[in-house]
């Protein structure tokens, strides 16, 4: 179907929304707000996908990001001093480096976007979700199964690094240097 003026308007509106909320991530003192501005940004990108007729991809992006951004908020509040921004502070550091990195990556991405030849293959008639599922069970099966192993590695790695206690007792006990006092074997 041909995109109508409403589609153009919505894509632009959500696009601007995504950029503005992405910018707001760095303009707030509160970790909670920073995390959820980022979520708003992702939701806006998801909404753009929906307007562009990729309904499933857009919604799954929103579904994913809602869970992930709350975890991000929780961890940011956990680790950042002054998490609610009660003391004024700035979220931006290393101005020169970040400006160079930002402008650089914008140029590279814009270049790719303008120059690259995107494949002009519309989704075959029917449901895009079905096509995605067939891809997953066909050509991309190895990729899909390796993702499983990668996720397992992520889980075990995260728990092994982060968990304080395990079945062998307190993690910190095990990581302590053995006592110098060998004769008594006491660890103090």
């Amino acid at each position: 179907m041909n995109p109508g003026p409403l589609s153009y308007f919505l894509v632009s509106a959500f696009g601007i929304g995504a950029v503005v909320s992405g910018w707001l991530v760095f303009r707030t003192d509160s970790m909670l707000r920073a995390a959820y501005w980022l979520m708003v940004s992702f939701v806006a990108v998801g909404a753009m996908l929906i307007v562009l007729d990729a309904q499933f991809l857009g919604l799954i992006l929103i579904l994913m990001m809602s869970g992930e951004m709350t975890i991000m908020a929780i961890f940011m509040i956990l680790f950042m001093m002054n998490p609610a921004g009660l003391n004024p502070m700035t979220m931006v550091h290393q101005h020169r480096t970040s400006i160079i990195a930002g402008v650089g990556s914008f140029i590279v991405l814009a270049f790719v976007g303008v120059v690259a030849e995107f494949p002009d293959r519309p989704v075959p008639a029917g449901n895009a979700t079905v096509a995605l599922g067939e891809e997953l069970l066909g050509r991309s099966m190895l990729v899909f199964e390796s993702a499983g192993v990668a996720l397992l590695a992520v889980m075990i790695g995260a728990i092994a690094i982060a968990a304080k206690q395990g079945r062998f007792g307190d993690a910190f006990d095990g990581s302590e240097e053995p006592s110098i006092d060998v004769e008594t074997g006491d660890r103090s």
Partner: protein
Amino acid sequence: MTAFGILVQVTALLSGGAYVLVVADRLMSGTGSVRTALAYPVRRLSFLLLQPATTTERPDFEAWILGPALLMALAAVGAVAVPIAGPSAGGDIDAGLVLFGAAMLIVLVAVFIFGWGPNSVLPMIGGYRMAAMVLSVGIPFSLVVLTTAIPAESLSVGMIVEAQSSLWFVIVQPLGLPIYLVTAAAIAFWGPFDLPEGADLAGGVVAEASGLRLATWRFARAALMVTLSLMGQAVFLGGYLGPVLPGWLWTIVKTLVLLVLLALAGRTIARMRVQTFVWFGWVVLLPLALVDVFVSGWLAL
């Protein structure tokens, strides 16, 4: 149906359902007659609208206001995914199940910011409890809803209802509805899983809320319960399918059955400890939901 028509329909459905839920909950709580219970929602709302505003010293003003508004919006958007009257009457979203799943996971955000907003310790602990709960049951919840899409071969709720024309999924997928109800109660922080609003936190996330803030929050939560019941009946109880009566009436009857069931459980089962809940979600509900997926899949072949 136009967007405006759907808006009116959803508003009527959620308000009516919320009224029934509040009355049922009041009847279950142990004191009072049926007559007072029927008038209770109106009187309570009138009082809350009269109550003066309160605030705390240094709240996150916007987050605190956004909490109830977001919860209400999520409940409403979840209800849009469910066809009420029949296959053609609006609400046929291709990926309706994903829309619903996303809306229900974002409920966590609404509760979390509502607990964080007032800068007070009891609501804040309530918000973090909600995070523990939703992170534990989010996966089993999504899984059991998703399982109903397997025989239907579609993520559209309308198609899932149509696929039940011979037999409801509550029979084909016997594990589905029980797991759904347990996880739905947790996502609506209702019943034995009302940890974020627990009496041990003096009301938890609502401990600092009064007046209109409390009224909108309570209404949004009741609407969320209605949305969850609505989806539950659509994917497990055959939605608008049924003999004699018109489709929309079947939808309403089945929704009310689930709603009253949840209201009853809420007042008769003791509140679960949060740690027990996390264990329960991962070690009991998640494997059961996976069994549900694969057994139902096997049967659908």
